[in-house]
């Protein structure tokens, strides 16, 4: 995982203070009004672009703002030559391929992330785009819905624009905006049948949502995944970290979840990844015992410096965390996310509330 480029300008003493406030129980966050599970407040709107199939904009209170436009275009499916007997293109009444189950391809969904100040091929946008694409494609249901017939399919372009400079790690914001945009994406309804050249209804009111609303109350509606960022600081788990909080994190987890229809939990995990915390790149503090100006002895070699640092682990002198996360902590985070009334359910519910309310 590539480390983050933007770093906070905090001194080792400030980092140490921040870390100790975050690791006490209960943790005291940078914004003291927030608990460990609270997200930053946001303003969200959808259907903001007239020329896109679906769009959404979310602005966080700190000024970070993202805009997502989803566009669907019809594309010809390349016909791969197969050996042996071939079944002809189907214009008759057979209905074996009508639902598109298992027909989708990953290449039909393309995610592009544009972050101001970064080139398109820089590590951060590329990494963010692949993370988002991975979570979208994980369930396999989305790409199957893009199937039109054996000769044509929809190509879904998801273009994500970060309108402000990335003040904090933007993955959570981008994912929530994409979620809202996909939730409101409509594709024109098909009028042609079977393997004919596709012809669409030009009435937008007849367009069908990409993520159809559930007909019955009992089964939860299938929804696009949301990526939730969580950091571990000491024994504490903190969600939706600010930039400064990321700078002292022991480990960062990105958990993509979606609503579950069957299981007893509130949500199900689609994918999970660790992200290299930017705290690795913070400068370590020099303790008095290693500083000859304050009566200590400066280490002669780097090996000696390492052993001296090893002994300072609990002294409160800032040493960048070496990464790694206890297995128990990972399971604790996932449990907090997926349980009934957990973080995932809360977020997905809140975003659904924007669309319906």
């Amino acid at each position, binding site marked *: 995982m590539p480390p983050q480029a933007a770093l906070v300008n905090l001194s080792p003493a400030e980092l140490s203070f921040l870390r100790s406030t975050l690791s006490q129980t209960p943790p005291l966050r940078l914004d003291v009004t927030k608990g460990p599970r609270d997200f930053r407040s946001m303003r969200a709107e959808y259907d903001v*672009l*007239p020329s896109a199939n679906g769009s959404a904009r979310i*602005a966080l209170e700190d000024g970070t703002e993202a*805009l997502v*436009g*989803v*566009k669907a275009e019809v594309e010809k499916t390349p016909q791969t030559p197969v050996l042996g007997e071939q079944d002809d293109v189907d214009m008759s009444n057979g209905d074996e391929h009508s639902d598109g189950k298992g027909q989708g391809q990953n290449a039909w969904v393309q995610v592009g992330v544009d972050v*101001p100040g970064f080139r398109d091929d820089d590590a951060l946008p590329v990494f963010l785009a692949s993370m988002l694409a991975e979570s979208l494609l994980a369930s396999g249901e989305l790409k199957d819905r893009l199937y039109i017939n054996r000769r044509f399919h929809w190509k879904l372009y998801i*273009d994500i624009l970060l309108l402000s400079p990335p003040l904090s790690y933007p993955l959570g914001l981008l994912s929530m905006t994409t979620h809202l945009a996909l939730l409101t994406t409509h594709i024109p309804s098909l009028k042609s049948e079977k393997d004919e050249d596709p012809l669409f209804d030009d009435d937008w009111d007849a367009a069908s949502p990409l993520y159809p609303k559930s007909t019955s109350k009992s089964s939860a509606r299938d929804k696009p995944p949301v990526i939730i960022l969580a950091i571990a600081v000491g024994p504490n788990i903190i969600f939706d970290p600010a930039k400064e909080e990321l700078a002292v994190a022991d480990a960062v987890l990105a958990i993509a979840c979606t609503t579950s229809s069957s299981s007893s939990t509130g949500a199900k995990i689609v994918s999970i990844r660790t992200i290299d915390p930017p705290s690795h790149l913070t400068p370590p503090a020099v303790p008095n015992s290693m500083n000859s100006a304050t009566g200590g002895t400066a280490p002669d070699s780097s090996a000696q410096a390492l052993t001296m640092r090893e002994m300072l682990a609990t002294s409160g002198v800032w040493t960048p965390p070496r990464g790694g996360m206890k297995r128990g902590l990972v399971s604790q985070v996932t449990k907090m996310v997926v349980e009934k009334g957990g973080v995932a359910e809360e977020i997905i519910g809140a975003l659904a509330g924007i669309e319906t309310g």
Partner: protein
Amino acid sequence: MPLDTSTYSLALLRLDGRRWNELRRTHAQISTQAAADGSSYLEMGNTKILCSVTGPHEGRASGQRGGANGRAKMEVEINSAAFSGTDRRKIGRGDKRTSEMEHCLREAFGGVVLAHLYPHSTITINLNILSQDGSLLAACINAATLALVDAGIPMTDYLVACTAASSASASAADNASADDPLLDLNALEEQELPFLTVGCLGDSDKVAVCVLETRVRMERVEGMLAVGIEGCKRIKGILDDVVKGYGKRFG
């Protein structure tokens, strides 16, 4: 030609139902983004622009931090979203049309902003085109003006812009009223008619920007310019109301 505007002479109504001298619905907001020094959002019909201004600030570490002669350096970046048009099209950094627009904005605002007050510093204007439907350059100029006002950067006057076209065609020569110049074009009209973008300083008749890329008969230019300048005055009124309306919230 994708479509025909020759129907204009029949009812003197344009494709979207406007008269020759009507602007599209123009709506603007300022201070839309908390993280920027100044920001604005402008809609001219279906053309939607988001603009943010950073600065005056110390420029990037490499190269010259400010402009020459103790003046601030203007930087303009235009980013056109891939979903902005009818078909999805990704426009790269080095696109010629975009860099030409950037240059035009840089030159135009270089003359309006009191850059000598900020030596050794840079003013960056970032424009995001969210949706395009004609009058792109004009909308960019208007959005940038609002964002600069929001950033509190001193300027001599508003720089407002508008497009105007000549609807005259050989076939409509017998109908004198059918060769009206048209104000504020949308994308379809832009594709078909010769048009110019004119930018004025506030309510005055001083033209700061004039871009004419299509062929047009000489005697038509004057009429187009006159209508364009008239349109600029109306847009100035709209932008002024936006700024004053925003100021009232703090009054």
